[in-house]
């Protein structure tokens, strides 16, 4: 197999696997998997920018995904006017105080210079700002959370089209990444890793507990969609016509009533598939844009410089490259891409549930995608996103089937067999680990390794 053909072959295999799911299970299931594959691929691209291009070990992916998610509700939900009335002004005051306070502290820190008690004075200033902000923030958040807590109890969003939130998600994640990068990027690999891991946890606990902003664990459901609702489709004449045209063969020769019934069933099924196809189309567009930009960047002089820094930081610094500045740039860019994917994921779910974010699913699984797919290679990351998500989802039914076959010799009522079947779903964790270890051992660069062949 020539290296050039390799991507085509592996992507063809991937497509074939999705088709098999379509035929064996159902097209809806296949499309659900495909949509999440696309989102995963974008996340993997984001991580690849940081790790594959620049060797940054960011274990806080979950945090940026969640920030993308929160952007969806902040952009697209309708504002809650009652909450804005009782607490909006004060909350704005708190925000302004926070920003002004932070600037003041920085100015103070710089102005104080090398005089004595620099750290003590700064600390005192920080504490003063904290209490000042808190005096506005506390009553405001209480007031907002008291507004019909069962249904709202938060400020709501801006009421803008939900598509905008994908951009906003990227920007929000980028902003957070800039701040985090400023603090942590001087740290060495392992220290950086654990620091980002921790910061992601801090972000999640903020999202879970700042009810006035995110509704916290009460979740925000019924987010607006960028695509039509299935029920509306089922009632729109143009869609019914479309379904009719598609199924002309099957519908031919039926009587009027039968035909209407059959058509209704078909358009119900069709509407689900249509909506999922719409999502798939949108996701595909985003993926293409990001992939194109990534490829252009990777092969530009900028990309070469980034890789040079990754491969030999000291040499790059000696050549006069601004290593820290470039690393920050990369960190922000990669996180922004993850944020976009996070926003897309929340849009697809139709609800924002901060309780679902956990590091195993939203950080480590993405890492497995990047490493297995091929770090440093954009196509590889996309493949990793597809493949690993597919395995993650299908490992459960396959695991149950496998256990069923393996233990079929036992008495159906035996405890051993029941136990094996019960625990079969944990096979997916083991499968993930084994796939990762095997790929790292026998194809260290991943399935589609980086082309420059540096390692």
């Amino acid at each position: 197999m020539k290296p050039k053909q390799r991507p085509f072959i592996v992507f063809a295999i991937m497509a074939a696997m999705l088709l098999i799911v379509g035929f064996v299970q159902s097209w809806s299931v296949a499309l659900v998997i495909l949509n999440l594959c696309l989102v995963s691929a974008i996340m993997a691209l984001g991580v690849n920018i940081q790790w594959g291009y620049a060797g940054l070990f960011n274990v806080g992916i979950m945090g940026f995904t969640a920030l993308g998610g929160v952007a969806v509700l902040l952009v697209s939900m309708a504002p809650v006017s009652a909450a804005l009335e009782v607490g909006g002004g004060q909350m704005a005051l708190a925000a302004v105080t926070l920003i002004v306070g932070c600037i003041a502290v920085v100015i103070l820190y710089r102005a104080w210079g090398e005089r004595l008690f620099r750290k003590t004075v700064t600390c005192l200033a920080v504490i003063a700002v904290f209490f000042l902000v808190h005096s506005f923030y506390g009553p405001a958040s209480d007031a907002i959370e008291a507004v019909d807590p069962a249904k709202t109890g938060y400020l709501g969003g801006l009421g803008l089209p939900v598509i905008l939130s994908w951009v906003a998600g990227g920007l929000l994640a980028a902003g957070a990444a800039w701040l985090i990068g400023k603090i942590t990027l001087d740290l060495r690999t392992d220290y950086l890793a654990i620091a980002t891991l921790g910061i992601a946890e801090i972000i999640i606990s903020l999202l879970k507990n700042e009810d006035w902003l995110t509704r916290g664990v009460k979740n925000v459901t019924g987010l607006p969609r960028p695509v039509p609702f299935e029920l509306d489709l089922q009632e729109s004449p143009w869609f019914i016509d479309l379904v009719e045209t598609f199924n002309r063969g099957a519908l031919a020769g039926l009587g009027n009533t039968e035909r209407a019934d059959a058509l209704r069933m078909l358009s119900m099924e069709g509407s689900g598939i249509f909506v999922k196809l719409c999502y798939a189309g949108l996701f595909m567009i985003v993926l293409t844009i990001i992939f194109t930009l990534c490829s252009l960047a990777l092969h530009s002089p900028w990309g070469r410089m980034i890789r040079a820094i990754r491969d030999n930081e000291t040499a790059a610094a000696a050549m006069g490259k601004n290593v820290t500045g470039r690393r920050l740039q990369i960190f922000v860019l990669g996180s922004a891409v993850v944020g976009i994917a996070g926003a897309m994921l929340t849009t697809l779910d139709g609800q924002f549930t901060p309780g679902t974010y956990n590091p195993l699913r939203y950080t480590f699984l993405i890492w497995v995608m990047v490493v297995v797919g091929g770090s440093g290679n954009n196509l590889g990351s996309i493949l990793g996103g597809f493949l690993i998500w597919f395995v993650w989802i299908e490992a459960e039914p396959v695991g149950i089937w496998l256990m069923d076959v393996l233990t079929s010799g036992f008495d159906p009522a035996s405890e051993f067999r029941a136990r094996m079947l019960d625990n079969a779903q944990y096979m997916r964790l083991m499968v993930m680990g084994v796939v990762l270890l095997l790929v790292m051992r026998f194809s260290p660069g991943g399935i589609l390794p980086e082309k420059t062949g540096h390692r």
Partner: protein
Amino acid sequence: MTEGPEFLNALILLSNYVVLPAITYGSQLALGALGVTLVFGILRFSNFAHGDTMAFGAMVTILFTWWFQSLGISFGQLPTALLALPVGILFTIVILLLTDRLVYRYYRRIKSKPITFVMLSVGVMFVMTGLVRFIIGPKDQNFADGARFIFKARDFKKWAGLSEGLALRSSQLITIVVTMLLVAALFWFLQKTKAGKSMRAYSDNEELALLSGINPDTVVRVTWILTAVLATTAGLLYSLDKSFKPFVFFQLLLPIFASAIVGGLGKPIGAIAGGFIIAFSEVCLTYVYRKFLIYLLPESMEPETLVQLLSTEYKFAVSFIILVLVLLIAPTGLFKGKVV
């Protein structure tokens, strides 16, 4: 309304709800962090699989505890699990050495980048998580026996004539005592024995240690054995004190990492300090000091509010806030940890 001297009540109150739980939790974190830091010192990577190694060790111990219990073997007032602990350690040693042979050794030979090892440990973590849940299931497991309390809060109140009670559970005492013994033994091993000395030499300067004839394979093997002892014991102590549930060990890994990093990776003494710093800050920062102050202050100054620095929602974030703050001031931890 209160009985006994006010300041004694205040002292007991704080011991019961802050000091004792924090020492226990801190010991468990310290043992975990020691394992992480040892691996980092010798093998030079952050072992993400450590939490699940603890779960594995505890699981084997529990399985054997059940077996012992069914045979009618008991340990008197002490939990039977302590009898099964050596067996658990043995199995964990075997699995860690096996992992090293199958996974890590190859990369050590070809001198891979440190980050490769971290990725590998993520892979091992996945396999180990799956394995533990596959064998024992995801649920809470009950295996504790023996006396639950040394003394109860109610009895203490009666005995001391105070309005505040102090409870001491056997699991807390066992945790503290075993941790002290194990830490003492570890430091003795590292300082006094030949193997320990070569480990320290290897950790300080690999090249020099190799030149002076230290066998790297032996050092690595001893490291894994020590790690197994620490991880299994930490996992079991934790399970005895709270409960055994596989999912929790991943949650536990995060504060353990925070402890190891706060102290400085590769520094055993730092890991211990880090463990207690994290545990105490979690409890102290989220504690409600109202009752404590009521005891101490004159009636006119009694606080109206709860006097809580941070609400308990953010308890879990505390360890990471501390972590980030420490790293800002000392980028390699308090005890100047290693950098690879």
